[in-house]
Structure formats: C-alpha cells, structure tokens
C-alpha cells in the first residue's frame, strides 16, 4: 500500500461519508413534491383534491402569516443543518495505530478500554474502577480507589503514557489521570 493510498484510506476510515444524510435530505426534499404531484394528477384528471389544488396550496402557504413564517423557518433550519453537515469535518471517534504492513484503525472506545486496563492494573484495582474518555488529542482516566488505599497518580500517568507509546497512536494522545476523592469499599 503506497503512502497516498494509505492517507486516503485513513481519511475515509476516520471521517463520516454523509451518504445517509444525503439520502435522508433528498427524501425530505422529495416528499412535498410527491404530495404536490399527487394533487396535480388529481387536478388533471378532474378529481377532487386531497387537501387543495397545487396553486391553492402555494397560495395558502404564502398567504397565511403564521404558516408562512413557520414553513420558512423550517426551511431555513433544514438549510442550516445541511450546511453544518456539509462543512464540518465529520470526524469519527477513531485513531490510527502505527503499522508498516497495513492500515490499522481503532475505535476510541476500544482505546479507552485499553487505557483503563493499564491504569487499573497499575493502581491494583479491578477494571471497572477505571474509566477513560478519549478525545482526538487527549485521554482522561478516572480512578475510584479502595477506601484507605492510596493510588499514585504519577504511576498511573506513567502506565497510560507507556501504553500509548506502545500503541503509537496517531493523532497522538496525552493521557491525564484523576483519582476520585471518594473511595469505595472492596478491592
């Protein structure tokens, strides 16, 4: 796999495609048109309208003050959502692990879980006493110690940093740990 291909695939794996959003937006745009088309067919056939004739629908929407502002506000809101979807990076919670042979992408929850394991192991706690949240550039490790037993924050920081070095995560992450003041009874 050459560098260009690797970069392209890494980008695709770490960003949303937006094709679901496009499909939904297209159907949202098509729905009023489908309704107006049904009314149009009924008008051409001379049958009675489901609600109003197409021209009357336009006149009702543009003529009633409350309806006019309501529909326009909805359209502007939809436009704003679509523009946000189009222009935001759409990053997924994933990081890349260094590997020469292949592209390795890992979900942030798996990474968080691995850091929790390293932190809990160092602190001598059970795995469920450590929780980690992973962002793009940092990881926050939180530990709930056993009452009466001190946990060294420096040791935990060293262990999580060592784990991150071992994994060689990209973009790089800095881990910070926090030991909760209130401990729990038990191991």
């Amino acid at each position, binding site marked *: 796999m050459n560098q260009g291909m690797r970069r392209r695939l890494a980008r695709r794996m770490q960003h949303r495609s937006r094709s679901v*959003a496009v499909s939904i937006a297209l159907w949202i745009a*098509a729905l009023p*048109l489908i309704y107006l088309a049904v009314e149009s067919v009924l008008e051409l056939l001379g049958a009675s309208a489901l609600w109003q004739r197409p021209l009357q629908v336009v006149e009702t929407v543009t003529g009633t003050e409350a309806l006019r502002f309501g*529909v326009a506000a909805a359209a502007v809101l939809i436009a704003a959502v679509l523009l946000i979807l189009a222009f935001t990076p759409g990053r997924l919670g994933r990081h890349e692990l260094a590997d020469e042979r*292949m592209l390795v992408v890992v979900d942030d929850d798996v990474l968080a879980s691995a850091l929790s394991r390293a932190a809990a192991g160092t602190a001598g706690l059970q795995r469920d006493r450590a929780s980690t949240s992973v962002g793009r550039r940092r990881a926050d490790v939180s530990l709930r110690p056993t009452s009466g037993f001190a946990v060294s924050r420096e040791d935990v920081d060293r262990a999580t940093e060592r784990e991150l070095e071992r*994994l060689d995560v990209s973009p790089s992450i800095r881990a910070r740990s926090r030991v909760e003041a209130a401990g729990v009874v038990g191991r």
Partner: protein
Amino acid sequence: MTRSNRILNRLALVLLALLALTAAAFILRPEVERYVLEPLGLAVPSLGLAELGTVLPIALIVLAVVAVIVALAVTVTRGRGADGTALDQEGVSVDAGLLEGLLRRELDGEDEVLHLRLRAFRARHRVLLAEVQVRRGADLANVHRRVARAVATADEQLGESLPLVTHITTGLRTRFAGTTRTH
C-alpha cells in the same frame, strides 16, 4: 471503503441547503423584496403561477418524478463497492471468505478477539477491510500484534500482500461477552 464520492456528498448537501433557502425566500417574498432586493435596487418579476394553467401541475409532476428518481438512485447505490473477491489477477481469483477463514484460523485461541469479518472492496483500488471485534478491556497492543502475525501468515500463504485495512472495534458480541473467557 465504499465507492461513494464524499466530495459529491458534500456538494449535494450544499445544493439541497441552497434549495431550502430558495424555498424560504420564495415563501417570504414580500419581506425579501422590501429588506433585501429594494435596498439593492433589484427587482424580481412576478412568477404569475396562476397564468401557467395546466403547465404548473405538469411541471410539478415532472419535478416530483425527477426528485424521486434521484433520491432512489442515491439511496440504492449508497455504499456500493463491496465484492467477494480478495484477489483477481492473471486468471486467479481468491474469495474474500477464504482469506477470512485463514485469518480466523490464525487468530483461533486468541481470547481477546471475539470475531473477525473480512470484506473486499473495489473502489479506485482493490482493498480488504478486516473488522476485528474485541473484548472489553482487551490488551490492544497484543491484539494488534496477533492480527499482524495472522496477516503475515496469510500473506505468506497467498504469496501477495494485498492492501488491507484493519478496524479494531466493538459490537454486539462485545456487549454480551465478559472481559475474560470463562471455560
């Protein structure tokens, strides 16, 4: 991995946003004329929808048909590009399932790996995507090492290093599996 063109997706979203804004401007036409167009010295001729007669319903039907065709085409063709062939050259074709079996066999006994699924995609190039579901609290470095070893063995047996993306993830199996295997 799929063939979906992401730039086209973004452009489609921008286009639909502009359509929505145009619809809003049409609905708020008197205000748009008073506060935007008149200060700029611009005037928009009246649309005269009532004078269109039967053209309006026909135009609406055509528009709706086009909108439905486009929406259907985008929905149906979304995410295409997957095919079951991992390698196809010089008359030799290797099924992705075969390679998946090979990798699974190599990872057999690795407690932290719950499931492996291999899919082949043909977009600009042929690419394989291996989804590896792991246990909660898995030793990630160990999983990575084991997968890399399995891939190296597969490469050796295949005599070729195919472009591969490994996605280490969680799933339903992870939710129901414990942190360690119980025998």
